[in-house]
């Protein structure tokens, strides 16, 4: 087929494909462009009829307003809570994943149970957890939020890292064992370095998912511990959702690091988003 001369049908097909591609890219990027542009608009153009795309005057007023409204604190909360919970989930998850990968601990039942937590709606656990957290004083604490985030990030880490550890050649670990290395030594000195690209990709995606988390902090925290996502929603109750400029600025601050992260790990993006079902 590759050696075929270009035909009318072939040219038509390629043209059509290019058009579909351009349309898809436009649909994917236009709303993102709208958010970014809106964050630089002067107040009179946040809400205009007809809508204004390009700001007549580029201003940082929205960023200043957003920052003074608590955006700075929310950013700090997001970084702290998501950063620490990602770290915790990675440490616990790598240990468990190594055990599942090398020793088939618990057969397929334990790993299936852990994986199922990933797919159950977290709202199912919200009511009992809220009562428990209130009882033990974890409600509205950063530590409580970190525990919650870690819990719901853990299954993803375990599953992804099991896949990456499965791909580490056994022969290297075996010879290390023969040389007298302990299993912990094998994990730290051979398996983790050999699975490093996958480890980084898993950590980045875990961070991205945690960064997007909205339900858990909404239920389990108050204003002073809100991350960016809940801060963004908070504008509605105060002003009927018409503070579009600062909200867009807050969205940009939350969005840009994640887009950069996605580009940095694009080799593993599809594999991560599909829980390893597609190696991409």
């Amino acid at each position, binding site marked *: 087929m590759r050696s075929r001369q270009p035909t009318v049908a072939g040219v038509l097909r390629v043209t059509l494909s290019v058009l579909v591609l351009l349309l898809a890219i436009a649909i994917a990027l236009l709303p993102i462009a709208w958010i970014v542009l809106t964050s630089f608009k002067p107040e009179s153009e946040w*809400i205009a009829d007809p809508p204004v795309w390009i700001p007549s005057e580029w201003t940082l007023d929205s960023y200043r307003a957003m920052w003074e409204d608590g955006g700075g604190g929310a950013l700090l909360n997001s970084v702290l809570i998501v950063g620490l919970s990602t770290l915790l989930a990675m440490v616990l998850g790598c240990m468990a994943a190594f055990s599942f990968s090398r020793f088939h601990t618990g057969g397929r039942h334990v790993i299936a149970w852990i994986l199922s937590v990933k797919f159950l709606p977290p709202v199912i656990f919200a009511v009992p957890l809220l009562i428990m957290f209130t009882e033990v004083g974890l409600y509205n604490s950063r530590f409580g939020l970190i525990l919650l985030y870690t*819990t719901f990030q853990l299954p993803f880490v375990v599953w992804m890292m099991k896949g990456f550890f499965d791909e580490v050649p056994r022969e290297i670990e075996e010879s290390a064992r023969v040389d007298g290395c302990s299993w912990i030594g094998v994990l730290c000195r051979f398996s983790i370095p050999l699975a490093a690209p996958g480890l980084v990709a898993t950590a980045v995606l875990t961070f991205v998912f945690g960064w997007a988390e909205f339900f858990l902090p909404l239920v389990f925290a108050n204003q002073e511990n809100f991350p960016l*996502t809940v801060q963004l929603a908070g504008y509605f109750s105060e002003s009927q959702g018409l503070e579009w400029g600062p909200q867009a600025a807050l969205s940009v601050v939350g969005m840009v690091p994640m887009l950069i992260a996605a580009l940095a790990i694009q080799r593993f993006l599809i594999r991560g988003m599909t829980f390893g079902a597609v190696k991409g």
Partner: protein
Amino acid sequence: MAEAASERSAVEPAPPDPEVGVRRRRGSPTQPRLRWALVAPSVVLLVAMTAFPFLYAVYISTHTWKTTFPVKPFIGLDNYTGLLSGDDRFWNAVVKTITIGAGALTLEFAFGMVMAIVFWRTFQRARWVATLILLPMMIAPVVVGFTARMAFTDSFGFVNQILSLVLPGDVTAQWLSDPTLAPLVIIAADAWQWGPFMFLLLLAGMLAVPEDSVEAAVVDGARPHQVLWHIVLPSMKYIILVAAVLRGLDLLRMFDVIALATRGGPGTATETLTFYIYNLGFKFFDLGRAAAASILMLIGVSVLVMVAVRSLLRNQAAAS
């Protein structure tokens, strides 16, 4: 299949000398006690944060449990029967969850399939395109919801502006205040974010179809649609199942986009099950009934969860 895999790993290379063999036998090389120590922290956390809360939810659901009342009497299954037989808002939430979920899934699947077919023979190697189209998936759903709210707000939103350019006449649809249009806003927002996911999954599935079988069919004179229907689609069964189940489970828990775009409204037009449970528990403080609704939701999604877990496990066992 898991048994076969563990058997394979049990076949260790023979120890190079007897001395090492003795040491390894003492340490039980394939099943060291360490293996449970490595899993223990994760298991403890998940038991404390999901398994125990689940049992606690069953207990709560059999009581009248309101944060505003000090007394919490046992009422058996009244919370369940109340939801199932007398709570229109619960059933509305079930219907909205299913219709919005099915609508979004259908739109995403159709988009993904058309795109995958178009790209299959033309842009196979253009990875940067894939990354570009994947970008919406990296954005927090709350930002997607907020953007949908801006985009669909009557005359201030750009959707009506763009539709007016493309369609004849001036489009002035009241997307957010019309109960029949509001679910479409949610579907559109979700499809914008996750349509690319379907496209990439289905494209990956198509590219995995053996080139030989496609070539052979073409040589035998099969028309393109016949190749697609008889060769390509049958070998994509697994990937289609995975795509539908992963997306479906995500759609069933949808909350963030709705919270920002429509807040469940107008009225209860976009109030999904997660949103209703949230309202029951954290707005009306009827924790007993919210717990009962949670248990019912768990029962409802458990079959799908089992399918998802099984197919992922089977896939990984086959790959390793």
